[in-house]
């Protein structure tokens, strides 16, 4: 296009700009449309897949986990509501709801032993024992999903990481950093002494004792004065597997 000076030239330039803008919008719209179409195709393919593999999804935890990941990528949450296509097709909503209820039960039953902190592995073990007769096996991934839905209940029910373990918290009291560090330290032998805490974390006696006494008061620790060396040990049921043994006897 030849630039022409004067008003005519200006009008042509404006018209050209407009045309480019329209073209630009069209391109954007085209891209969005294309994406929407792809997404929609993907979604219906996902639905077909779910229909076809319904049993596998129900029975196989690993498969189920991968299915969830696929759904997440497409922006589908089969657990979002209990009604609706997904819940009806797979009945997954009920499965996680049921798991959630059982998890709450187990946490409450073991709370007198472990103060409201239980390690995830143990929780899953107890859950599996409880569900021995059920058709569907339960994985840690399933537990985590059920727990994330439980968060809706508000206070507590969170998964925290301490050292190499994941712990499920079912009480509102949050772990302070000092407590977290002690728990991590306790993972080696299941217990710590005041001396050990001072030494390994370079804390003052006061700081160590305060933290341990708080953990004791909150029911997260138990004292042991029976060792022949006479040193008091603070044991942490949530890093051992005591909860499961006690739980299986009370449930």
């Amino acid at each position, binding site marked *: 296009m030849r630039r022409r000076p004067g008003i005519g030239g200006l009008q042509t330039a404006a018209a050209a700009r407009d045309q480019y803008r329209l073209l630009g919008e069209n391109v954007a719209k085209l891209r969005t449309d294309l994406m929407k179409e792809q997404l929609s195709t993907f979604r219906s393919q996902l639905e077909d897949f779910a229909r076809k593999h319904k049993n596998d999804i129900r029975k196989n935890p690993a498969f189920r986990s991968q299915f969830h990941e696929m759904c997440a990528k497409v922006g589908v949450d089969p657990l979002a509501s209990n009604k609706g296509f997904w819940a009806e097709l797979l009945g997954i909503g009920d499965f996680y709801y049921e798991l959630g209820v059982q998890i709450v039960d187990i946490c409450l039953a073991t709370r*007198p*032993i472990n*103060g409201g902190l239980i390690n995830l592995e143990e929780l899953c073990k107890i859950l599996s024992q409880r569900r021995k007769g059920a058709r569907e096996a339960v994985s840690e991934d399933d537990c985590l999903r059920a727990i994330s839905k439980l968060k809706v209940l508000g206070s507590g029910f969170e998964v925290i990481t301490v050292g190499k373990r994941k712990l499920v918290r079912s009480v509102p009291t949050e772990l302070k950093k000092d407590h977290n560090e002690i728990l991590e330290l306790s993972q080696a032998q299941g*217990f710590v002494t005041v001396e050990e805490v001072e030494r390994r974390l370079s804390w003052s006696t006061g700081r160590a004792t305060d933290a341990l006494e708080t953990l*004791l*008061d909150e*029911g997260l620790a*138990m*004292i*042991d*004065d*029976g*060792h*022949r060396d006479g040193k008091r*040990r603070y*044991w942490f*049921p949530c890093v*051992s597997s*005591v909860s499961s*043994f*006690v739980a299986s*006897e009370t449930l």
Partner: protein
Amino acid sequence: MQTLGEHKLPHFFHYPPYFTLQPVRETREKQIQLWKELILDYCRVQKIFVIGLEEDFPLFSNPAIERSLNHEAREAFLSAIVLDGRAEWMDKSHRQCLILWHRIKEWADIILHFVKENGLEDSVMTVEEIRTGVESRGTDIHGMDRGVLMRALKLLENKGKLAIFKGASTDDEGVKFSV
């Protein structure tokens, strides 16, 4: 699970802190509950009626984890059982504890049942015969503590189900059932 002799032990028995009386109330309550159940269960299976606090009662220590219950803990657990009505202190200084893994009234019912099962409704037996005779073999009555048996029999006597009388020898007493 490990066994103490042949008794299957719950897992808390192998977790050291359970051998120390816990200071925090909720934790201690759970601890006491677990120990109460264990003690009663063990006594029932082993047919133990008396626990001496200063003696070597097998449950008071677990050599495998090198832990023992101190006197305070032993007394706390047994006191809890006493409070439940399933044990009695035999002396003021709480040195001996009578364990009623069946309450006296339950023993009385068991005896009644035993009498009916064996067609002894109108018969006469000595107390020793009841306790060690052939008929009671296989039941909880066999080998039971004589003192407890006498209390149960006296309870039944008060209800008119039997009459206790002195035998020919001074060693034993007789029971005439009228169930």
